[in-house]
């Protein structure tokens, strides 16, 4: 069974249609990378899967349930889907530990002790436990983003959506965040990743989708997309990336 299926998903902002009918399937324990220029619809697609943006047409099925059907409780769906944003979006008025335990306590109804034990376990695993009592603005960008990933993981999601999670980071901090994602992939986490890190996508993805102008123009295994792209637009895009020294 697919972890996520998108069928003819369309999304407009005002007059402008940003997703022109997206069809996509993500198998369980698979990592799917979305690549493409800024504005091609990668972020919007992820936000639609998480129901942060209502779609205008089509269907999204997560774990066998059509989440875009009328009357579906969006809060319940979101519990099972973790999303990490480009700008971390940690809660600045809460310590790292509180950031991580808020949702398990308020949404899953875990006790303070239980939620904190879980959170500390995750923080230890990702080398952040010394930071548990700090406020986010005391942390480096890389640490903040790792906390954001831990915060999403604390809800024990079946699916993680990563929205250009390294784009706001200084180059020397990218590695530590990518390592976390590698570890998640090795642990069998199903992930849908929008990224500009082509080398990373090539290494980690089971499937790479090239988005262009709101459609998936080409998809396939990373070797095929990066070595022998069929579409001229994909070739052009990758060539520019190579010229920029990013692949």
């Amino acid at each position, binding site marked *: 069974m697919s972890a996520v299926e998108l069928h003819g998903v369309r999304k407009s902002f005002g007059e402008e249609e940003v997703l022109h009918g997206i069809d996509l399937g993500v198998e369980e324990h698979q990592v799917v990378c979305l690549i493409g220029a800024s504005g091609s619809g990668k972020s919007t697609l992820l936000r639609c899967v*998480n129901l*942060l943006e209502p779609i205008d047409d089509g269907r999204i099925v997560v774990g066998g349930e059509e989440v875009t059907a009328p009357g579906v409780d969006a*809060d*319940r769906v*979101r*519990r099972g*889907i*973790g*999303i990490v*944003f480009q*700008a971390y*979006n*940690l*809660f*600045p*008025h809460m310590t790292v530990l509180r950031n991580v335990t*808020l*949702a398990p306590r*308020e*949404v899953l109804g875990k006790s303070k002790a239980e939620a904190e034990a879980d959170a500390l376990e995750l923080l230890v695993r990702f080398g952040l436990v010394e930071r548990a009592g700090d*406020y986010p*603005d005391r942390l480096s960008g890389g640490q903040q983003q790792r906390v954001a990933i831990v*915060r*999403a993981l604390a*809800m024990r999601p079946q699916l993680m959506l990563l929205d250009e999670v390294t784009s706001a980071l200084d180059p020397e901090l990218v590695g530590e965040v990518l390592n976390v994602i590698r570890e998640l992939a090795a642990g069998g986490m199903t992930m849908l990743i929008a990224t500009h890190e082509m080398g990373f996508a090539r290494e980690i993805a089971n499937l790479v989708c090239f988005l262009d102008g709101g459609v998936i123009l080409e998809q396939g295994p990373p070797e095929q997309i990066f070595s022998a792209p069929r579409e001229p637009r994909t070739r052009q895009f990758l060539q520019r990336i190579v010229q920029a020294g990013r692949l």
Partner: protein
Amino acid sequence: MNIKIFLIAEVFILIIGLTIAILRSLPGPVFFPVRLLMIVYTDFFRGVPTILVIYLFGFGVPALAISGVPRSEFVWGIVALTLVYSAYVSEVYRAGIESVHPSQEAAARSLGLSKTKAMRFVVLPQAVRRVVPPLLNDFIGLQKDTALVALIGPVEAFRQSQIEVAANFDYTPYFATALLFVALTIPMARFTDWLVAREQRRRR
């Protein structure tokens, strides 16, 4: 008397102001009537002079002689000040709520928190922190305006000084009263500064 009016009114203002701000931020066409009502309320009470509201409630309501309605000018003075200042304070709260970036709410909702819980745990705490200085500024204004309640009867500091002045033709009581008000508002002003400084220290 002034401090009593101030303290009682303050509590109600904080609660009512926040309620109005939240009701005004409710999305969707379903809540349009609620939003409209709140907009009318804030526009009205920010537009009408405070003294007029105090007169209306202080003299008007007791004059209706409805049974079960308190006749105390003290009570109606508080009601009038609360109504006026709630309108101001709700706008301060609203500015605070709108200053919290939408990505914060998105992050909270993405974790499965309901709209209410996202508001309560993520948006409001940040909003309130940001509006403490302007909020206290409004309260300094409120502290001064408690003197207006004198006009409908209760003998507070300002009225007492008028009585003294009239009796002796000596303006010292006015001056003493002025000092009294300043003495009350200065600690609040300094407290505001201190809060701002503390917040800045923590941000560093």
